[in-house]
């Protein structure tokens, strides 16, 4: 990175980035910790967000530059036509054992097939959880309509589950381990089999922003990519930053099962995800994912 000369020509040097307080945001903090942003002449401010949908107004009015997003949200937002988003930097790919459907201790539900007519909690409706669960339900011979999905924040699902206020829950780490420790039984590993290797999350920006700030984008991307490189090879680096921006204690962070951090997204898997979403009717149009990936940044 040629930080010094870039800085003088950059469109803006202070960026506001929406981060979700989960391990996927780690690369940004690795970059910050290692001074990659500073080297590019950038100052990065973070705001905690839950999901990009909630901060779309900020992205549209230009008060937020980039944000961590799931691929599902990225597709959904583009599909809605409210904004044109671009994939800026891939972060994490699914690996078996990081997201599962679980049921309470002595639940009569033993397998995917038993879920017929039951209530399943997911964090957000018509998103990743519902999509990957549907894929497995179909494998077990059920239709998506056979199960009633309700939206409950992850943390609250544990309570709902152990007091049997819902029949099953789709959980990710660290909630999954906590549920299992509590006696919950995993009935579907939703990131294995047909859904193994799906892309999970990434940094996103708006097309507009990319067009208006090519130099800044390039500088920001260089820094992020460098950190992504570290994250994909050095688990310790991730463990070290997690407690700095989340409330996950260091021991838990070290013990958490994570997906694959890699430099680039597998376009085939990305398209597969898009097709699944479209197949369940969560997207109106069948997207071509290559249009979401910018040819080059900067």
């Amino acid at each position, binding site marked *: 990175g040629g930080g010094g000369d870039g800085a003088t020509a950059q469109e803006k040097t202070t960026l506001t980035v929406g981060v979700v307080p989960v391990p996927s945001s780690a690369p940004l903090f690795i970059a910050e910790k290692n001074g990659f942003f500073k080297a590019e002449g950038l100052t990065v401010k973070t705001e905690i967000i*839950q999901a990009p949908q*909630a901060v779309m107004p900020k992205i549209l009015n230009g008060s937020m530059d980039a944000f961590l997003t799931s691929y599902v949200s990225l597709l959904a937002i583009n599909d809605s036509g409210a904004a044109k988003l671009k994939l800026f930097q891939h972060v994490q790919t699914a690996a078996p054992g990081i997201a599962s459907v679980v049921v309470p201790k002595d639940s009569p539900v033993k397998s995917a097939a038993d879920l017929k007519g039951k209530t399943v909690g997911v964090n957000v409706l018509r998103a990743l959880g519902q999509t990957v669960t549907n894929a497995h339900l179909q494998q077990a011979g059920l239709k998506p309509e056979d199960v009633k999905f309700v939206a409950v924040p992850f943390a609250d699902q544990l309570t709902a589950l152990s007091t049997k206020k819902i029949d099953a829950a789709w959980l990710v780490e660290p909630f999954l381990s906590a549920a299992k420790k509590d006696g919950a039984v995993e009935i579907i590993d939703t990131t294995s089999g047909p859904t193994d290797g799906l892309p999970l999350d990434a940094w996103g920006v708006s097309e507009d922003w990319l067009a208006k700030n090519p130099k800044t984008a390039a500088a920001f991307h260089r820094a992020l990519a460098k950190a992504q490189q570290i994250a994909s090879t050095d688990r310790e680096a991730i463990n070290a930053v997690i407690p700095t921006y989340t409330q996950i204690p260091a021991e838990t962070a070290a013990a958490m099962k994570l997906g694959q951090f890699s430099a680039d997204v597998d376009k085939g898997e990305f398209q597969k995800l898009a097709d699944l979403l479209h197949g369940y009717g969560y997207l109106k149009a069948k997207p071509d994912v290559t249009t979401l990936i910018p040819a080059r940044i900067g």
Partner: protein
Amino acid sequence: MTKALGVAGVLGFLLLLEVAGRTGLIEVLPPVSAVLVTAAGLVVDGVFLADVGVTLAACATGLLIAIVTAVPAGLLLGTVPAVERSVRPLVEFLRPIPSLSLIPLAMFVWTDSQDAKTALVVYTCSWPLLINTMYGLADVDPVAKDTMRGFGFGPLAILWRVSLPSTAPFIATGVRIAVSVTLIVAVSVELIAGGAGGIGTFLVQAGSANRVDRMLAATVWAGAIGLGANALFTAAERRLFGWHRARAGEGA
């Protein structure tokens, strides 16, 4: 005496919860004692204190703006029937719109998250102030108003010297309702839209990390802050409206 009873009430409630937790009635949540220990720990947590500061700043500014706009508006609506009848449908149209549904709009209009939050606080806590002011005005003793008119005071003087003071207890109730509303709105907005800090973002962080004890501890603090604010406003009310208490047969 009253304070001791209040403390006893709170302690009794906590004890009840603790027993319920220990005996397995609500085993899934961390026991009250654990939550309280965590809550106590947060007092020395600089990050949490900063979050509290961010939330309170939005609450205080929002409440202030709401008071200086909604109370005069209530006075206007309460004294000029024609205005009231014309504006009422609009007010009733706006009131039931949840501030949470307006978050996207506020964030679109105000580029700064804190400003957007403050705007939503103003929007929400204006209603109790407005409504209570209007009902207070309807409760003013007509003999008192006639007395002022008899001395030739104009409508404004009557408003200022009779209607306002005798409406004051109603307004005070409105303010006390509004105080906790500000807190609820600010935290909820942070919870949904996030931001650079605040009790709500703290809750988001704790939630994403599955730290239920910290979530509950922060919730306890939200309640405690509301309790403190109420005590503050009640004390102010006592000072300002001593006449009201003394004249009325206060609860025996």
